[in-house]
């Protein structure tokens, strides 16, 4: 199945743009999706602890299960002020 990814701030550079689609296995969780991202782009690796996921507009834990067409936002903390 396919999910829609959105990335913000510095994660846009890592993702290679502000949005893209990604196919994941049926029943995959956000943790599985992250593992997929790290495989595709190792730069994601060190950012694991500081990235939050929003699933369809709600910030949720990584055990959340994905469904076809879900929107997953990758949210890093922004440093600047």
């Amino acid at each position, binding site marked *: 199945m396919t999910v829609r990814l959105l990335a913000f701030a510095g994660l846009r550079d890592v993702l290679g743009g502000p949005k893209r689609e990604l196919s994941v296995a049926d029943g995959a969780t956000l943790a599985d999706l992250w593992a997929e991202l790290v495989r595709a782009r190792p730069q994601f690796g060190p950012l694991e602890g500081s990235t939050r996921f929003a699933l369809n507009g709600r910030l949720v834990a990584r055990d959340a299960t994905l469904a076809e067409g879900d929107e997953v936002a990758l949210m890093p903390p922004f440093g*600047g002020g």
Partner: protein
Amino acid sequence: MSAREPESLAGRRELRRYSRHLLIPEVALAGQERLRAARVLVVGAGGLGSPVLQYLAAAGIGRLGIADDDAVDETNLQRQVLFAESDIGRPKAVAAAERVAALNRFVGIDALQVRVDAANARELVRLYDVVVDATDSFRSRYTLNDACRLEGKPDVYGSIFRFDGQVSVFAPGGPCYRCLFPEAPPEGSVPTCAEGGVLGALAGLVGTWQANEALKLVLGIGSTLAGRLLVIDALDARTREFELAIDPDCPLHGERARIRDVVESEPAAPRDDGIPDIEPGDLDAYLESLPAALVLDVREPHEAALGLAPRALHVPASVLEARLHELDPATPYVVACRVGAKSRWAAQRLHDAGFRRILHLRGGLLAYAVLHESFDFF
């Protein structure tokens, strides 16, 4: 409206200044009195702090604390609209206090030339009703969050990067910054404005949101961003809202709360990747002693316009993978970027690819430039 005479507003002259507030039913005279009685602490007089302080002062907040231990730098002026060119080099808390005093003589100002840290955060926060987090460091954000939570004060949060901004309110009883981001990111893994840049007007957008939330908290009107994270995308002119709940594992909530006092939150140490660092002060001697050595400059092309690295081979991090074959594992490379974040990843990638003669320039070319006045880099 009641016929009550204003008691604490000094007189008609002061009242006149707020006439556009007095015309709003939700504010009116009673609201203006609340603003006057309120004490707000703004931590960070920078890109966010500038609009926050301007609007809070103009609105007639009775007491404004301005905490910043930094001095005005030329590179601040692109977004820190509180300051003039003549302020360069002056303490921000002092220069900001002067501007605020000139905006509204009825506002009491505490110019605090301090860095808010574990030792002073709770005492400071205790003196105010609302705290605005306009800082630029993760360490300060966690310190403020914890102090506000322990003292029962609302923390109006804002942060920015390039074209993106985040705003929220961490109010007593609701989710906090640690519910949003449980731990500070590893040192250097998240670029700051100094590394990634920021659009000046975005600071105005986010700071103005913070000022608006702080005013509503004081007035007790409307709905705040408590429990919601507002994300502003200034590039595509979009805003998005994300629901934020209390994290059951957050160490600041409920029966099982583990954080009972503010302690200095150490950012996670960078992972030990087996790549030795070279100090910026040792780079010249190293290059001199090893004529084959090169600086591998992994900054992106647009960053190179800010200054060229000495004896450098320029391979942007974004194309490192594709150009790996151009590099020679026998060559000693000092991997460098602007502040040492991207280069850390690039060095790791080279190490994984079997390069063993690599060093990593600690603090990046910016740290090197600080030691070399002749090196025109910013």
